[in-house]
């Protein structure tokens, strides 16, 4: 019943190219799921930044060390896991503080974005270590897991972490990196 070679492929292609109708209820399910979430703005508002900065948190960090400047590249990123707080919860659910550091000499503003903040540039603004200085930092509490992240410089330039594994499964078309937080 089936023809050989190219005719078969042509027939399969024609068969698979027919329009497929998806249940329109998908639309409402999508909109229900995104309702109430943050608006995906590229740059964030001051109130969100203030909320992030003033939110109560429990952090213990190890000191930064050996930070090199990536001249010309614009950025160098280090992630330093913090020591666990004295009253840390059990290991499997423990949240640890991670400090993200980026060297961005000419940046006016830098945001840390990743799976942990829904890639919302408004939620984790980075702060310069000194006024006008090139080093920007942010501290984020992370539970055990695998997170993709990147840095958004001046609202438009995406930077991956040259010192961390690249996110090979990234699906958004912009560079990103991966940090894996262990459970102990």
């Amino acid at each position, binding site marked *: 019943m089936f023809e050989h070679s190219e005719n078969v492929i042509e027939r399969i292609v024609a068969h698979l190219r027919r329009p497929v109708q998806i249940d329109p209820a998908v639309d409402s399910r999508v909109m229900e799921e995104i309702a109430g979430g943050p*608006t995906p703005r*590229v740059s964030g508002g001051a109130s969100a930044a203030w909320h992030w900065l003033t939110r109560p948190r429990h952090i213990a960090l190890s000191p930064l060390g050996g930070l090199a400047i990536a001249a010309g590249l614009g950025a160098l990123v280090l992630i330093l896991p913090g020591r666990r707080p004295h009253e840390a919860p059990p290991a499997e659910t423990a949240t640890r503080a991670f400090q993200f550091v980026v060297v961005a000499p000419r940046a006016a503003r830098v945001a840390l974005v990743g799976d942990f903040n*829904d890639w919302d540039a408004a939620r984790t603004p980075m702060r310069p270590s000194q006024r006008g200085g090139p080093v920007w930092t942010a501290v984020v509490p992370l539970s055990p897991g695998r997170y993709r992240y990147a840095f958004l410089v001046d609202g438009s330039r995406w930077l991956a972490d040259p010192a961390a594994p690249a996110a090979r499964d990234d*699906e958004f078309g912009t560079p990103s990196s991966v940090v894996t937080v262990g459970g102990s």
Partner: protein
Amino acid sequence: MAQSLGIHHVGASDGELVRRVRAGDTGAYTALVARYRDRLGRYAVHMLGDREDAEEALQDAFVRGYRSLARCDDPERFGAWLYGILVNRCRTAGARAARRGRLFVRDDAALTRAPLPSPAERAEWDDTVRRALARLAPEYREAFLLKHIEDLEYDEMARLTGAGISALKMRVKRAREQLQLIFREAERV
């Protein structure tokens, strides 16, 4: 129909809709979902072979697309960008389905639309195509569908999949060869 009731401009470009969503008009995303639902859904249905899994992957892709809209560098090419997300979601869903041991199932809705002479032949053809697709390695099936069904250029496929162009050409070639072989075997049975 909801998108034509005046809330959204019928002819709004992808870029315009993306900018409105970013400005806080969440409802504008409805128009983008309606615009791409069936087209992206076709890829998901053929890739996963199961309508329920396909709709779940599609829904997940739309939600992730919304939450990551700030990373869509070229709003006018929102559809192509969303394709990349869906390809990834299908990979994840396919791996999950493989672990469950789910087989490809017959799509009765598609069967009724098949332009073949008799219901029996339609059923046989549809089953054979689906089983043949299911027998391809996921990366071969992905490349075949993106090239021949979704009509993408190799450089676009490379961007979406992360694979090199030569690797993709090889996958498409292997997929075609394997499909031809599978159909020759089916003819002998």
